[in-house]
């Protein structure tokens, strides 16, 4: 088990180098000259543009730029944005916010999704099940920015239950509405996954055996049906955690959450290589670590899945 974890963690090293190299190359290949853009529509004088290019090493060939960046990382210097702020500071300011938003969203979608999916599966074909299917279909088919704008308008502007956008320091209470919006689509998928998984398990031999043994219905559902139905759901939630951290750009824009998606978007627009690469690299690492955690969780849910040393 320990060896397995170690081996997986070792895999992080090539992933890290591959990801940074690839992303650095992509930023490098982006059309447009970030230095020319700094001058707005008037443009900079050639001599000034050359000096700025030299300051950000943009006059060097790609591979040299990459190694300068790598060298910086190992001395704890991730570079600075055009506004002069160290990238490490930007990372420290934005990741906790997005992490909070994502955790809230994952809690909401897991609890609501699994509960509703379970009830739906147990009452297959009844009114509750039908309504749950319709609602989840609706959520899946509506683009997230529509859900975002509509809920912001209704709850933030009309009913005034919450602030329309996220305020100072992104407090938990301001993040609730964005988290619901962010969770909406995944919630719909979790309902459907849980439902079909539960239905499948209902017909398994071990469920029939457990019922025949005279176990209470609650215990049958909890231990024999739900637990066995969780494997695909946990896989989905785990990957979703990574996706939400990376893909909250739209929601963060609508609710003005000062998080990762928003900052990354601006950095891409401005062509700030060091910021983009550092952000994406941290995202990749989070994604990989989460995948490892999910794999380990399988073992807990289903003892048949064991990891060789």
């Amino acid at each position, binding site marked *: 088990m320990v060896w397995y974890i170690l081996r997986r963690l070792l895999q992080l090293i090539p992933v890290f180098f591959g990801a940074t190299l690839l992303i650095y190359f992509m930023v490098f290949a982006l059309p447009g000259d970030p230095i020319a853009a700094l001058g707005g529509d008037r443009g900079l*004088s050639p001599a000034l543009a050359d*000096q700025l290019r030299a300051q950000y090493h943009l006059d060097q060939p790609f591979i040299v730029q990459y190694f300068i960046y790598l060298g910086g990382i190992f001395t704890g210097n991730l570079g600075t944005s055009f506004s002069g702020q160290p990238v490490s500071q930007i990372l420290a*300011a934005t990741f906790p916010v997005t992490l909070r938003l994502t955790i809230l969203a994952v809690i909401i979608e897991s609890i609501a999704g699994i509960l509703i999916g379970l009830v739906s599966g147990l009452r297959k074909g009844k009114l509750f099940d039908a309504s749950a299917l319709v609602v989840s279909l609706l959520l899946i088919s509506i683009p997230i920015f529509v859900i975002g704008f509509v809920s912001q308008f209704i709850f933030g502007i009309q009913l005034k239950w919450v602030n*329309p956008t996220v305020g100072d320091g992104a407090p938990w209470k301001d993040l609730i509405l964005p988290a619901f919006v962010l969770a909406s689509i995944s919630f719909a998928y979790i309902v459907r996954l849980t439902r079909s998984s539960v239905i499948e398990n209902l017909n398994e031999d071990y469920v029939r055996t457990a019922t025949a043994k005279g176990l209470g219905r609650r215990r049958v559902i909890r231990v024999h049906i739900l637990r066995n139905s969780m494997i695909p759901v946990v896989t989905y939630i785990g990957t979703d955690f990574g996706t939400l951290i990376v893909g909250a750009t739209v929601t963060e824009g609508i609710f003005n959450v*000062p998080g990762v998606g928003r900052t990354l978007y601006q950095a891409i627009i401005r062509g700030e290589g060091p910021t983009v690469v550092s952000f994406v690299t941290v995202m990749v690492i989070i994604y990989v670590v989460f995948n490892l955690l999910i794999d380990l969780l399988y073992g807990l849910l289903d003892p048949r899945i064991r990891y060789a040393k």
Partner: protein
Amino acid sequence: MKLNRIGVAFAGLGIATALVLTGCSTSGSTTPSATASANATAIITANGSEPANPLIPTNTNETGGGKITDNIFAGLVYYKADGSSANDVADSITTTDAQNYTIKIKSGLKFTNDEPVTSSSFVDAWQYGALLSNKQLNSYFFESIEGFSYDKDSPLTGLKVVDDTTFTVKLKDKEADFPLRLGYTAFMPLPASAFKDMKAFGAAPIGNGPYMLPDAASWEHNVKISLVTNPDYDGPRKPKNGGLTIIFFATEDAAYAEAQGGTLDVLDSVPSAQLANYQTDFPDSFVNQPAAIFQSFTIPANAAHFTGAEGKLRRAAISEAINRDQITKVVFQSTRTPATDFTSPVIDGYSKSLEGSDVLKFNADDAKAKWAEADAISPWTGKFQIAYNADGGHQPWVDAVTNSIKNTLGIDSSGAPYPTFAQFRTVITDRTIKTAFRTGWQADYPALYNFLGPLYGTGAGSNDGDYTSAEFDGLLKQGQAQTDVSKANEFFQQAQELLFKDLPAIPLWYSNVTGVFNKDVSGVQFGWNSVPIYYEMTKA
């Protein structure tokens, strides 16, 4: 003031989007509220964006940072809502020849770190900003001062400190509007402590303006910046409120929602999706006024059929064939104002009744008559096209304009799209373009000359149509040699009357700034540069 890059994509290329507005023309820009008692300690909240560069005045060339530096620094002059300028730190700016200026500043002023504001505070800051190796984005603002060089480190020899409150400026050439520039961010003074560590200064600037940044922590990057009033500032821009918090929004839509929710006091750009409803959402508290952005299309000076006497007739006929009122209303939902000159209504010296400006009014009969007259000289052949970049949202108005020309003159007319702005600019700069093409200009500082010299002066940097007129150049030169701005403006107006005859570019309209504010805020006015004048605002 340059727009930020997103701003360039929208406004620079002229999309129907939001910039801010000045003056107080349409409804509701100033709502005197008799009932609301102003609270001198209330904090005004406004929208903004994270500064793209450190907050060093000579390095702040986009609106996100400019909004902040303009409020924490006080320059020699400041701009009023109507685009005119008045002394702030300056006591007097005098010249006898429009080339050598003597500037006296008020004594006893200080920065918020208690350093005195002296003539060296200005001279040192300008020297720093102009030096190539300091890599300041606004360095071009110093180009007209003697000693400036784009290509090498070269001190501004034209700047001389006389005593603590006096310094002199020698320009390379006569420039009557030099004093008008001095309210721009690039010309702000810096305390001596700034030069010791400019990097630290850019993160926590120390100014002498109406507001101040109490500490570096009050600038929460990507979130907001909280400014408080500067107790030592006693100039003409003394705040009527207790502070200014600029919240950085990722999208205009989020800012609009916040204004609707009531927690954002003033928003200076209405997102395009809300242009249809902002006047009903904020019935008594919206702004929609022309800004210092002029839009036109240029017909190259050597285009076939557009030279000589025939050309003058055809240019006038095309101008009169465009129904600007209808197009601004239908295509732009009234967020453009039909042009009446070559500058902008928010600039001091603007006049809407210049001789010859009738050519900008829709007049189908006269247009047909002039076109027929030109046909008598040399019959029209071919197609009249207006080139534009397809990535900037220009197609609707180009189609409307060419349709208007087609229907009025009965000639074949259409748009000629280029896929990207870069390709579009390339054919213009290498002069391979043979059709008319869209052009636009946003002022760097509020002066008539800034709309004329760079665009139509012989050989000027942005004279894309290669217009050349010795008479026009002469009038500009005479204007620049005046020592009195209003006298200079008379020459610039005459120069415009000449442009109405030659029509090197066909004026179309001014971009508007659209904004909304909350009911409990009063005294809302927008400056010439489309930014609200925060220090005048009060909150109940």
